[in-house]
C-alpha cells in the first residue's frame, strides 16, 4: 500500500462527474479529502490523499487522465514561498501537523514539509509576510 497526495483541477466541463466515487469503487482507493471546491457549472479544485496498491493508483491516474482534469502529484494546495518567509517562526505554533517547523535551533530557519501539510490554512492567517498561500 502506498499513499499519494494529489491536487486536481476540474475545468467547467468536468464538474458534473462523480470522479471520487469511482476512485473508491472501481480502483479500491482509500480517499482522504483535505479540501474541495467543486460547484456545478464552475471550475473546481480538489486536494486529497489516496492510499492503495501501486497498481490501483497507476490505473486510477490513467482513469483520471481520460477526463479533462489536471493532476498535480504532491501538495499544490498550499504553497510556502521561501523568499517571502523571514524565518520569524510565528507560524509554527499555528500549524497542527507540524509541517512548518524550526529544525535547526542554531540557524533558526523555518522549513515546510509538504507531506505533513493537511491544508488547514491556519498558517495563512498567522504569517504577517504572506509567505503561505492557498491555490484556491
Amino acid at each position, binding site marked *: 500500500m502506498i499513499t499519494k497526495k494529489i491536487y486536481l483541477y476540474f475545468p467547467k466541463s468536468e464538474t458534473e462527474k462523480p470522479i471520487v466515487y469511482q476512485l473508491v469503487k472501481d480502483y479500491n482507493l482509500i480517499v482522504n479529502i483535505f479540501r474541495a471546491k467543486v460547484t456545478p457549472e464552475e471550475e473546481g479544485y480538489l486536494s486529497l490523499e489516496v492510499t492503495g496498491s501501486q497498481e490501483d493508483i497507476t490505473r486510477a491516474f490513467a482513469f483520471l487522465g481520460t477526463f479533462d482534469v489536471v493532476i498535480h502529484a504532491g501538495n499544490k494546495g498550499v504553497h510556502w514561498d521561501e523568499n517571502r518567509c*523571514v*524565518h*520569524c*517562526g*510565528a*507560524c*509554527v*505554533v*499555528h500549524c497542527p501537523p507540524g509541517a512548518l517547523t*524550526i529544525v535547526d*535551533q542554531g*540557524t*533558526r*530557519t523555518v522549513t515546510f514539509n509538504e507531506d505533513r501539510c493537511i491544508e488547514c490554512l491556519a498558517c495563512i*492567517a*498567522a504569517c*504577517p*509576510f*504572506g509567505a503561505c498561500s492557498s491555490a484556491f
Partner: protein
Amino acid sequence: MTKTYAEINEKIASGKAVVLTAEEVIAYVDKHGLENAAREVDVVTTATFGPMCSSGCFLNFGHSTPKMRISEAWINDVMAYCGIAAVDVYIGATQLRHNDPANMYHPGEFRYGGGHVIEDLVAGKKVQLFGLSYGTDDYPRREIRTMFDINDLNQAIMVNPRNCYQNYNVAVNVSDKRIYTYLGILRAKMRNMTYCSAGQLAPLLNDPYYATIGVGTSVWLAGARGIVYAQGTQHCSLVERGDNGVPVEGAGTLALTADMKEMRPEFVRGASFRGYGVSLALGVGIPIPILNPEILRRTTVRDRDIQASVIDYSTDYPEKTGKVLGRFTYEELRSGTVELMGKKIPVTSLSSYSKALKICNLLKSEIEDGHFLLSEPSQRLPLNQGMKSLTITGAAR
C-alpha cells in the same frame, strides 16, 4: 586598556580590524578572557529584524509642468501626509490602503498598506501616485496621476521615530476568546505565547546603558548606511533591570534614518497582522566599538541572562494595569515551550533570529573590508528618563 574611535577606525580603514558578531564574542571571551579579548577585539556587530511600526519615509517627487503644491496624496491608494513643502510627502508604515475594510469584518486581513508601499519602493517596483491640490497662482495644477519608481524620486529617505526597542513584552491571552494583536494571533486560555526580540544579538541589549550607541552612531539600516538621529520616541531608560543591568521590559529606543535608495529589499518587508493592521519589518545592524573591557563584557550577554516580562494582552495590556504574569529568559523562550501558572505553553517569535544573525555577519564583512567606519555619538541617550501617560482632561470649551 582602552581604545579610541579614531584608533579603531584606523584599523578598519587598513583592513586589520578584528570584528566578531554578538554571538561569536560570547565564546571568544570565554576562551581568551576579558582583558585579552578587549585588547584583540575592535568591534562587535549586533542586529535585529522585526516589525517596527514607527517607520516611514519622506519622498520628494520633483516638479511636474505646470507645478503643483500637493495637498493630498495616495501612493498605490495608501494615503501619504502632505502637510509639508510642495512635492514632499511622508508615508507611514501603518497607514491602511484607501477603502480597506479594516476590522469591519473581524479579524481584518490588512493585506496592503504603508509598509508594503515602502517594500515595493525599495524593491524597485512601479507604484502609482495620485495627488490633489486646491491650486495656487504659483502652483496651478490641481490633480496628478502617474506611475513612478524609487529611481524617479529626488530623495527617498527613511525616517523612523522609534526602532530597535531594547527589550520587549512577551504576550499571552488569558481570556477564553482568541485575540488578534501586533504580537500575532493569541489563542484563548494561554494556548500560545509570542515574543519579539533578537535577544543576545539585539543592539541595545548588548549596550544596556548606552555607552556607545547614541545620537550620531552609524548604523546599518536594511543595507544602507544610516544614523541614529535622536532618542527614539517612548525611550524610557528608567525601568527595572536585572543584576547585569539589562532591562526586563521595553526601555530604550532609537530614532533611525537612512537613504532608501541604498537599501536591500530582503530587509524591508511589509507586514500584515490579522485583526490588527499593517506594519513594516526592518533589519537593523549596529556596530559596538570595544573601547574598554567593560563595553566588551556587556556584549557577551547571552539569551540565558536576558529576561522578558509576560503580559496578558486580553486585559492587562489594553487596560494598562502594569501586571506582569511572569518572567522568562530568551533561552527559555527560544526552547519553544515554557511553563506559566502550571501550564505548558508553546512559544514563538515575531522577530527573526536567522535574519538578525545574517545582518550581524553582513555588517561584520563590511567592517572587515574597510567599508563601514564607526562614528562617535555627539550626544548620549538619556539614562534617567521615565515615560509619561496621557491624562484625559476633557475638551476645551
